[in-house]
């Protein structure tokens, strides 16, 4: 982004100051939305009309074009939240709070979608909607963590105080996720020795990889747009809250 080249101090206020952040990032929403729509159109065209059925899985391979991007986002969004959490804790960065809060429901939705499409993919290929294998189980646990974080946000009245607490919990979760993944994998291989399904990236033919990549980008852009809009709304919501508080004080005085 062009912001990177701006001098240090200026660059910092431009992302740290809520008003300025909204001012410059607002102009990004429209181009990003257009890019998202174009990517989706292209990706869907490839997914349905310009890619062959897989020789083993047949047409069900087309579910992969929505499954893999949502699964990728389920982890990417947590990464965004964890980085924002560091911003909140280390620099007390006001936009980091806002970013964390706006990302949580998106992450939960994408994780739920990854599970949903995974189940619909699993039924024709493995013969069951749900299999307690390592990958699906750790995605489920991730969803539970997302829901916990959302519940924690909603439990606080004072959102400024909530941010630091949620940030701490988000980082505790980030440290725990690898442990959970490892333990769930260990547990799953214990109970069913052979892995049912492996996604061997590089061996996939380019005819499948092209739509996959386009869809991954489309979903990532979609997340960015929704995240930005959510952040703008959150900034305004805080302004509303402080105005209401001031008004109430005036009324009480």
């Amino acid at each position: 982004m062009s912001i990177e080249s701006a001098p240090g101090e200026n660059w910092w206020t431009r992302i740290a100051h809520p008003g300025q952040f909204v001012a410059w990032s607002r102009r990004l929403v429209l181009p990003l939305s257009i890019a998202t729509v174009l990517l989706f159109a292209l990706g869907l065209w490839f997914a349905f009309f310009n890619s062959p059925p897989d020789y083993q899985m047949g047409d069900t391979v087309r579910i992969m074009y929505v499954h893999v991007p949502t699964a990728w986002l389920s982890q990417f969004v947590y990464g965004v939240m964890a980085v924002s959490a560091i911003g909140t804790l280390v620099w007390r960065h006001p936009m980091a709070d806002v970013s964390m809060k706006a990302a949580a429901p998106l992450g939960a939705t994408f994780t739920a979608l990854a599970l949903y499409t995974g189940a619909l993919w699993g039924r024709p290929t493995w013969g069951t909607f749900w299999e307690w294998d390592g990958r699906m189980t750790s995605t489920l646990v991730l969803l539970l963590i997302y829901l916990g974080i959302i519940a924690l946000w909603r439990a606080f009245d004072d959102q400024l105080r909530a941010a630091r607490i949620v940030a701490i919990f988000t980082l505790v979760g980030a440290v725990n996720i690898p442990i959970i993944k490892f333990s769930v994998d260990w547990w799953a291989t214990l109970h069913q020795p052979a892995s049912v399904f492996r996604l061997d990236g590089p061996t996939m033919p380019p005819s499948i990889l092209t739509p996959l990549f386009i869809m991954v980008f489309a979903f990532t852009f979609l997340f960015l747009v929704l995240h930005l809009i959510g952040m703008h709304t959150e900034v305004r919501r805080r302004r509303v809250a402080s105005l209401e508080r001031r008004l109430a004080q005036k009324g009480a005085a």
Partner: protein
Amino acid sequence: MKPFAAIIARDVRLALRSGGDWLTLVLFFVMVGIVVPFAIGPDRELLARLSPGIVWIAAFLSSLLGLDRLFRADHEDGTLLLLRAADLPMSLVVLAKVIAHWLLTALPLIAATPLLAVMLAMDMATFLKAVLSLLVGTPALVALGAVGAAVTVTIRRGGLIAPVLILPLAIPVLIFGVGAISTGPGPDQSGTALLLLAAISLIVAALSPLAAALAINSSED
């Protein structure tokens, strides 16, 4: 070291004096074990096979149940604020409280395990392994619980949220805890599981006081 021990002693004394909370927890732990046979039937073989899981579920639920008391009372009467002013860093205060909480909530459960072992038709070897795995694993449960309790200490209805937050994070403890007792069919890997459980317990016990202290410090501002 002296203030550290003083906090442990204070918490233990307070809990013992204020009545049988810890006894109620033991009762709950045993009751979960008693209720399960009603749910799945009195088949001794089946019960013996499921017993590691049942014991751990009972311990898991009991530790979640007692969570809220870890910091709430001290937060409400201002003790936590005073402790912040003490020379001892907050993370050590949390560690002391975690140790006290473990002595009060986990140790009685482990002492009550023989009761469950008899009722769930465990054999001697399984019983010993269960005690060992509970001894190694419960510190991790309590330490994780401390994070949940610290994060929700200022929320009035935090008692409900803390278990929801902590439950997914505690899944590895449950997996390796049960794994350390029996690993089901196939080659026996309970030794590996016990070592992994010990590793997790150490990591969690080392890191979670830091996180919990951070949460308490930033919510008491």
